[in-house]
């Protein structure tokens, strides 16, 4: 229960913190990679490292992850179709995939799986539009929604709890 509360608090604070909309949106986009692509994949290790190392908001990434998890499940047939088109139907790309899947370490990334490749490339393709949409959404939120909910008692309780200190460690 405490964990859920902490996450909610983190999300709320991320949306309302001093972090720039760019940082929150970038975190959201990186988090979306975790939700859209199969979680236990080598590339997601890199994504997690990027979330930690770059000054993007961690709660933003968590938000992106949580929002896109159901989308990932729903879009699996689309990812599969994209992966099939590239791995199976595109004969011209065979030399590329042959190199990729026979290169040490890179071959561990499972890029020869239709779902992994399809979801990763779809995420890469929608990354920029997603960033723009997230950024606009955060601006709109801060401008129109936040002034209203800031007066809510539950919001003030969340913001004042001790978990806020944990969040501060990662706050940009």
């Amino acid at each position, binding site marked *: 229960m405490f964990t859920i509360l902490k996450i909610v608090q983190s999300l709320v604070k991320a949306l309302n913190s001093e972090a720039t909309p760019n940082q929150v949106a970038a975190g959201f986009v990186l988090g979306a990679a975790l939700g859209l692509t199969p979680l236990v994949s080598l590339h997601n290790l890199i994504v997690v490292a990027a979330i*930690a*190392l770059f000054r993007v908001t961690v709660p933003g990434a968590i938000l992106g992850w949580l929002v896109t998890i159901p989308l990932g499940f729903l879009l699996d047939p689309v990812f599969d179709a994209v992966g099939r088109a590239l791995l199976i139907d595109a004969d011209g790309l065979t030399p590329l995939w*042959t190199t990729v*899947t026979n290169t040490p370490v890179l071959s561990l990334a499972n890029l020869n799986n*239709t779902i992994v490749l399809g979801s990763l490339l779809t995420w890469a393709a929608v990354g920029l539009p997603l960033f723009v949409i997230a950024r606009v959404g955060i601006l709109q939120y801060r401008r129109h929604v936040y002034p209203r909910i800031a007066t809510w008692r539950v919001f003030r309780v969340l913001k004042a709890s001790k978990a806020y200190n944990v969040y501060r460690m990662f706050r940009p």
Partner: protein
Amino acid sequence: MTARPKLFRWQAIVPLSLLLLLLAVGAWLFLDTIVERGIEDSATFLVGAQVDLASADVRIGDGSVTLRGLQVTNPDAPMTNLVQADEIVVNIRMEPLLERKLHVDTVGIRGVRFGTPRETSGALENPPAGAGRIRREIDAWADRMRIPPLSLEGLGQAINVDAVDPDSLRTVAQAQLARAQADSMRESWTARLVALDPRPRIDSAGALVERLQAADPARLGVTGVTQLAADARGTLQDVQRLQAQITSLDSAARNGLAVVTAQLDAVADAQAADVRYALGTLRLPSLEGPQLSPAIFGDAALDWIQPVLYWIRLAEEYLPPGLDPRRYAGPKRTRASGTTVVFPDRDAAPRLVLGHADADLAIGGEGVAAGSYRARVTGLSSAPALYGRPMTLEVGRGDAVRGPRDVRAFAMLDHVSTPIRDSLDVVVSGFALPSLELDALGARLLLGEGTTALRLRRAGDRIEARWSWRTPAASWEPLQGAPPTAEGAAIGSRAWAEALLWDAVSGIRDVGIEVRIGGTIQQPSLGVSSNVGDAVARSLQRVVGREVERAEREVRERVNALVQAEVDRAEVAVAALQTTVADRIGAPLAELGDVQALIENEIRRLTGRLPGGLRIPGDR
């Protein structure tokens, strides 16, 4: 002016490193479980039934993996293990693991047993799509195989030939088709011939020939001869045009006649097929050994041959030739698995290489194959084209006292290039062959000690195999109760039939059964021969031969009576067509040929006699 935010969060390096360390430690701690689950999941998908592994012990430093308590469920008998192994020690190379490749130097397998009972069912509640596909395909093939029945019941009853349904006979329709086509062609060609109306022109040309023959060049002079020759050439051209038209008609008519004649041949074939069909509806037994052996041993042969086909197909699936990308079901996960495509690299090593494996196999229990064996596998590779050498499997007898006296098995799977070539030679002798329950005979055949030999060759899509079972010490027992007797039983009754078959086979001690497979690997044909079938045939011929012959004769006469009138009409129609082609088309064509030759001769005669050797225009 606001300060530009810093890009890196340096203070996160330590927590991130700790996280990675935690993951590494977690993987290290759970590596055994991960490998265990991975093997269980992959093998379960491959077999189509539960595969259990008691433990896996991975020692990265030593490059070894020890698997213990492997149980592979038999998909056809979920309470039985197809194979069970106490311990498998695998020595692997670590470097290829970075490329998701498994290169095994040696494998030692201990305590392999087959057909052991399971404590719990190994059937899959929700088998993954594609799991056990090959087994299902082979089962479907076996279901489609038609084992001919052997039924003697009803032989003594009067044959009800009226039960043969005329509507079910193909001959009538085939004959009607041939007749209709012959009539149609005849009318069409006659109409075309009438339209051409060659007679007046032939008669006119004939009259010209007479004029030419009567003409004297000396009396006609140059002018007269020239005029007459010009007339002759005009008529000649007309004759040639007519001849070309009738020749075209003749050619079409002969082609059509060939089609109709072929249809008439098909009528004869249909008539023979209808007789066979009608005999089939009466379920009359075959009296020939080659037909009886499949009826007796067909089911047993299918049971023997299915595992062979399964392993051959499996080897093709997982050791494919060439370097084309290969597709497999993706890894099992909560989300969709997708498809994993493997791209073999000409300059890289295969995904799986097993250089050498030795196994001590023990087949427990009191079964026919119980005993100890030694097996050796070399050159197993997921991409034989890259590995460059065929895989070999050698099995020999172990040191144990029990089991067959002699076991020799050698298999070579050459999938280095297409067409793939598999060969398998197995000879096992000096052991108790299995007993067979032969429902067709109502008897159990106890084969006793003997020899079995399997020789299989596969080249590309074609397969040829011969599996023989021989014993000099067979014995028989009825499937139920005491040996049947025909005393007081009516011919054609069940008791009579059982007694007849029992008498035919119960004295046979020397039994040989040969199962043959041919054709394509996807849809192989199955043949069975045995001296038991021959013995049953001889007995049947002796006792019921006359009955069967009588029944066959009645059926043949009945079918012929039903179809003969229509067949006769078809033959008459085709004969009329032949007459039309010969008389109404062939005859005028021949006349035109004669007239043409006569006109040409007369033109030459007339122009050749002109005084002074004069030539007239158009003369060659």
